[in-house]
């Protein structure tokens, strides 16, 4: 194998068995979510396929469709395994789109603030600090409540709640890079400020941002689930994991635990795996934690 920074990074990553397992799990989930229509026994959105007689059946029940509902069915007779996979698909979409956009906005805002400095920097970073002083869930909830239900409204709310984390991190990294000789070398050529920010400062500020991104995708997914659970997130026609948990919530005390518990477990395991991967990446990219 060639000795590139990437191959060294992967070799070190592989030494942590737990993180490697988590990474494999995340990839499998992402893969299954991508090909969901091909692997699920049922299309949970197709109301024509739902049979009300199969509603609230326990795990292992063989339904009218002739196949086994391994995780049981929900109150509308939906196969829970299919619903969870489709739910993960939606959650993942929301998490990646929201975090990705927040990443780009935050990185540009943070780097620009660090490069320009002065009043612009003070103003932008104080706004960011103000936002960081509120819990993300509160901000997202307020925005989602104002904008109303819907996919794009929810993405906007998530971006608004998350970009500040990226901006803060990018600003810290870029302010440190700004002082380094290679930036001065670029300025002494002279290169235009935009080029210096985008080609020199930004790429060198990426490692801490990547760490934040892995954690923020997980947090975007759990935010989305929370908002959907509370009823301000996605519409019921696109049941994400949060909505599934909310749907089963009312049956929890009547012994039909599976409607809520299995989507909840899927959510927890997925988020924990994402965080394990993120922690390992952080440990490897943070020189201060290196021995």
């Amino acid at each position, binding site marked *: 194998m060639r000795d590139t*920074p990437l191959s060294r990074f992967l070799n070190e990553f592989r030494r942590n068995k737990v993180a490697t397992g988590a990474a494999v799990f995340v990839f499998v989930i992402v893969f299954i979510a991508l090909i969901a229509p091909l692997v699920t026994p049922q299309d949970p959105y197709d109301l024509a396929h739902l049979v009300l007689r199969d509603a609230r059946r326990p795990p292992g029940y063989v339904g009218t469709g002739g196949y086994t509902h391994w995780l049981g069915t929900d109150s509308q007779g939906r196969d829970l395994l299919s619903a969870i996979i489709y739910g993960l698909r939606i959650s993942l979409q929301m998490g990646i789109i929201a975090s990705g956009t927040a990443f780009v906005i935050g990185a540009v805002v943070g780097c620009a603030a660090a490069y320009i400095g002065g009043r612009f920097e003070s103003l932008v970073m104080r706004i960011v600090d103000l936002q960081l002083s509120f819990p993300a869930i509160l901000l997202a909830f307020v925005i989602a409540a104002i904008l109303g239900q819907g996919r794009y409204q929810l993405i906007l709310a998530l971006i608004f709640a998350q970009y500040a984390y990226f901006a803060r991190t990018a600003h810290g990294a870029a302010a440190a890079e700004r002082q*380094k*000789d*290679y930036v*001065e*070398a*670029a*300025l*002494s*050529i*002279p*290169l*235009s400020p935009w*080029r210096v920010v985008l*080609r*020199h400062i930004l*790429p*060198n500020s990426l490692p801490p941002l990547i760490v934040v991104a892995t954690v923020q995708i997980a947090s975007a997914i759990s935010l989305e689930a929370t908002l959907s659970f509370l009823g301000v997130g996605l519409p019921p026609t696109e049941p994400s994991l949060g909505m599934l948990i909310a749907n089963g919530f009312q049956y929890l005390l009547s012994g039909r635990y599976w409607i809520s518990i299995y989507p909840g477990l899927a959510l927890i395991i997925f988020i924990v795996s994402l965080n394990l991967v993120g922690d390992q990446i952080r440990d490897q990219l943070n020189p201060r934690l290196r021995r």
Partner: protein
Amino acid sequence: MTDPVTTPATPLLEVTNLKTWFPSGRGEVKAVDGVSFSIAPGEVLGLVGESGSGKSITGFSIIGLIDEPGRIVEGSIKLEGRELVGLPSHELRAIRGKTISMVFQDPMMTLNPVLSIGTQIKLALEAHETFSSAEARERAIKALRQVRISDPERKVDFFPHQFSGGMRQRVAIAIALLHRPKLIICDEPTTALDVSIQAEILAEMKELVSELGTALIWISHDLAIVSSIADRVAVMKSGNIVEIGPALGVLTKPQHDYTRALLDALPSRAKPGELLLRGSGIADAAPPPRKSATANLPHLGSPYLVIDDVVKRFEKPAGLFRNLAIKSGLSQPLNVVHAVAGVSLTVKRGEVLGLVGESGSGKSTLGRMAAGITVPTSGTIGLNGQPVMSTGRAPKKITTRIQTIFQDPFASLNGRMRIGDIIAEGPLAHRLVSRAEAAVYVGQWLAAVGLDPSFSNRFPHQFSGGQRQRIAIARALAMQPDVIVCDEPVASLDVSIQAQIINLLIRLRAELDLSLVFISHDLSVVRHLCDRVAIMYQGRIVEEGEAAAIYADPQHAYTQRLLAAVPVLPQAAE
């Protein structure tokens, strides 16, 4: 001191076939690979070598400070006949600081910033003996007085940051001397210090060891320093001692090729301006022809870069409330530092001007203003009559005719770009070459600085320090400048690499009719390269003139002090 030529029958320290290895991804790194030497009581041994030669690891092995996973795989270290290799750590601790102590390069790193000097000395005392508080304080004051720190009764309560670099190193030496050790290992103890402080510490150290009869291992990359303090010199190369003998003998009549190469690489041993013997290793290609117009350039020797009464003040940025207070006259601005306090200087076309000074003299700030990186507080800098920076609220550099080479080639190249892109970026942005020609153009410059043109798609981390500095030079030259500001371009390089870079600069400067502003603290390098020299002290130029004249007959008292402080190699007997 003992007679350096004869080794007495009972050596203080005897190292035999020492091997200290470090496992790595690609097998063992044999940092020290079969080193043998001995030291008599009271003797000073200089351990000289370039980076990676194993000289520091040898020192660390003796004092038992090899970090895991490194280990001593073979050999013996005998202190007064007692074997140190394999000794349990608590027994090593009893020796460390008491019989053998160590002084490190950077005293800021080895002194604890949150404890007063007195407390740190007390802790070092209590590691081996018990003292009452009053006694310990008395001992601490005595120790500080011994290393010539004035007013020790008061300074004993100071914290490390209240001392200058030289004073901190004196404190570190005082701590090393506390228990009257028989051996002190000094690892580059003066490398981080200015020449004049270095000269003081060297002289004091010499006196102290002869007074106390302490043996010394002085680890250094600098042959001149070692020659001024050591009785015997050992030259190390890739984990081995290639030559060991009396200092005068090794440095005037070197037996080994490597020692000769090291000595030949020193600019102080060559005639000013000539190529250094061992530095001309790589055959360099001719640089590509200039494309920018040269018609309106003045003749060689006429004034070109004109710095007129330039001032740079640094103010600590004040917060909102203090700003209001300053505006209403209630408060003064905080910490105003005059880095450059009114400097006028003219660099002629084709000339090499040396800008010499110690740390804090403002030489780098002046250089960065000349290069258009830092905005002057007042004054003007013009290149051939044109300003270097635009005026207005946010001044920008508006010329490409003046370029910069930085000290640290590891920091000055963007690690995420291929070196071809690093070199081509500026010329492309300023349309000196078209995208189609860029690859050829980069290849020509790589060849001109002595690198293989096929290296252009590699990343900076794949190169050594000297190669990186060549890349940085190619980046500056690819902009086809007339002036290059070189800020300590060889200060962080080994002597042999330094010689190569100096040779490269001498050759390119002649071929391209470049003017250089050569900023350096190293007087011998400046002597070798520069036509004219300006000496800076506390933000001002105290003396300026032809290099030969200044070195032969310095007028200003500061220049005289500076030149006297430079350690000199013994001249070879004819």
